[in-house]
């Protein structure tokens, strides 16, 4: 019960901070609402970008996924950080110089086409909405698991909080709350990581602990490899994986990161071109702190978990083991009735024969990967307040990402659809009202969808990157680096890239026709966005060169965005 008091207290405190920040940073104009007035410092924008970027999944699930996938988990680590290099070098500075509010703004003006703008709006809405639904669901899960409130009530609380600061402050409110949320989430991630690193390797820095030694002098990673092979699993660092697919997935995540509207739009909020470059660097520093810690947590927790539990009598299992059994994240089924916990790979036929000879009757322990982050504090015997901190951190991660996405949705509606298309004569005041109303509606709809997610949502979130990579990335980069690419080329490229990627995903992942043996070149649906991107590139260039060049004023515009100041 003491944990609950700490958890309630810390969550309430952080929420009070977010609301306070929101009141302080109320938006007064559309420019403040869409891009925080363009006056955010590169450091603050870097932090806000990091919070915007790191979702509930990064915070709660990523270390667990790596823990159970080993070397191939690197695709997420490299994929979700490497995109920032592309952003800083190929996109952010030029889009900042272009100086409008949204990604569809750029696509629409660069390709002098309302159709291109509308396609971009639809893509932005689709990607952002599915992603936002996942976050609202994450908020509900965090509340339900830790605060013993109903899942629906948890989502409801999330809706109220996000609505409060997003509707009031727009991008300005969201930016400064994200700064606060980043501080909460990184503190919450690092405290248990530092303690568990000390506990396992004697080194307080998880990044060094991962390459460090255990108390008995063995290298940690060698020991974990050993534990894995002893139990019939592949060694943790084994490179015996489909590396072609790994290549494609990594690339799709990188290209997708650089094409996601809610990330790109953050670079419209800084004052100057040079700030946009620097800000991308800060953002990656803040992200890298978490992303280089995650693989360490993955290894510490897994080594700890297996060595404290495997082969031990159930009656002597540590307290946290029985505690987490109640949540269903761990489950023990004593198949051979010997009272001991036996964990091994019962999918490995050779090992199974050996295990049967020793009187084992199948793997008895099932572990949900999410436990790696959640149970960390208890595994390292940390005080109750640390658990409260992890909950507050998980909520900060979910709320900050949700808010960033909802802003893209509302801007797409009030700016790209209303102001730039349906009702160009709308006044500034009414446009601001439209923005506030659309963000309110978006919060509520995504909350409701989060409570009752349509079947496709969970699957699609994972593919949002591929879709962004196959649609936005080439259109934006070519729009900057070539003044020859024209409307016809870009439109054809976006449509082909998107249609190809979406149908591959639909065919294999959503409808479930065909298995891995049918994949083209062994590329899984998660990595297909890379191929879609290449296809988009080829089609764009091909069509461009058989159709007339863009008008002179577009060429001039491209020349102008290439220099910070004429």
């Amino acid at each position, binding site marked *: 019960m003491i944990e609950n008091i700490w958890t309630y207290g810390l969550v309430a405190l952080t929420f009070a901070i977010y609301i306070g920040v929101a009141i302080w940073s109320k938006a007064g104009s559309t420019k403040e609402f869409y891009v925080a007035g363009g006056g955010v410092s590169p450091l603050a924008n870097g932090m806000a970008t990091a919070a915007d970027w790191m979702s509930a999944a990064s915070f709660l699930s990523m270390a667990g996924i790596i823990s159970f996938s080993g070397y191939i988990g*690197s695709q997420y*680590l490299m994929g979700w*950080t490497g995109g920032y290099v592309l952003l800083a070098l190929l996109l952010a500075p030029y889009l900042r110089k272009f100086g409008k509010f949204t990604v569809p703004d750029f696509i629409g003006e660069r390709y002098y086409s309302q159709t291109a703008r509308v396609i971009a709006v639809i893509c932005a809405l689709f990607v952002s909405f599915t992603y936002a639904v996942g976050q609202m669901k994450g908020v509900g899960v965090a509340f339900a698991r830790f605060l013993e409130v109903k899942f629906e009530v948890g989502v409801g609380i999330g809706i109220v909080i996000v609505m409060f600061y997003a509707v009031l402050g727009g991008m300005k409110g969201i930016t400064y709350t994200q700064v606060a949320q980043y501080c909460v989430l990184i503190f919450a991630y690092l405290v248990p990581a530092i303690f568990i690193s000390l506990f396992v390797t004697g080194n307080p820095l998880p990044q060094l602990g*991962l*390459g460090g030694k255990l108390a008995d002098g063995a290298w940690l*990673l060698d020991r974990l490899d050993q534990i894995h092979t002893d139990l019939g699993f592949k060694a943790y660092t084994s490179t015996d994986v489909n590396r072609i697919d790994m290549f494609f997935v990594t690339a799709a995540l990188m290209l997708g990161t650089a094409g996601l509207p809610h990330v790109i739009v953050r670079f419209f909020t800084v004052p100057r071109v040079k700030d946009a470059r620097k800000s991308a660097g800060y953002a990656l520093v803040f992200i890298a702190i978490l992303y280089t810690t995650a693989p360490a947590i993955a290894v510490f927790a897994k080594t700890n978990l297996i060595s404290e539990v495997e082969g031990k009598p159930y009656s002597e299992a540590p307290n946290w083991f029985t505690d987490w059994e109640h949540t269903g994240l761990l489950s023990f089924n004593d198949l051979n009735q010997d009272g001991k916990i036996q964990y091994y790979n019962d999918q490995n036929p050779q090992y199974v024969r050996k295990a049967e000879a020793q009187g084992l009757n199948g793997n008895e322990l099932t572990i949900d990967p999410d436990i790696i982050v959640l149970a960390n504090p208890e595994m390292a015997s940390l005080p109750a307040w640390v658990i409260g901190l992890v909950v507050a951190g998980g909520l900060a991660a979910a709320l900050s990402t949700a808010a960033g996405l909802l802003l893209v949705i509302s801007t797409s509606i009030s700016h790209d659809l209303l102001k730039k298309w349906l009702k160009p004569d709308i006044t500034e005041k009414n446009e601001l009202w439209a923005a506030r109303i659309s963000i309110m509606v978006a919060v509520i709809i995504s909350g409701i969808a989060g409570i009752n997610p349509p079947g496709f949502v969970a699957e699609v979130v994972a593919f949002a990157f591929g879709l962004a990579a196959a649609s936005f990335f080439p259109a934006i980069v070519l729009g900057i680096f070539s003044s020859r690419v024209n409307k016809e080329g870009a439109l054809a490229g976006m449509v082909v890239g998107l249609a190809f990627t979406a149908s591959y995903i639909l065919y294999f992942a959503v409808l479930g026709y065909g298995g891995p043996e049918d994949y083209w070149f062994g590329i899984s649906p998660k990595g297909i966005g890379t191929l879609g991107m290449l296809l988009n590139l080829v089609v764009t260039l091909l069509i461009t060169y058989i159709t007339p060049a863009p008008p002179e004023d577009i060429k001039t515009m491209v020349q102008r965005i290439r220099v910070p100041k004429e």
Partner: protein
Amino acid sequence: MLKPDQKQYWKENLTYLLILLSVWFIVSFGFGIIWVEELNQIRLGGYKLGFWFAQQGSIYIFVLIIFIYVWLMNRLDRKYQVNED
């Protein structure tokens, strides 16, 4: 249209991009995926080198790449007098 020296500015920028993006590609896709087995023969403390690049090293180098680009471009902006301050 751009003044002639601004064309030169763009050319130099493209050279920087080419070099830095090659590094970006080599440390992640190269060291982390394509040549991981060869690099894993070498050790860095408790890490196999290929594994280190895939889970740690590439990320540190990504950060470095961005800040080197920031520094190079600030210098280039001043050289061609297109800096904003």
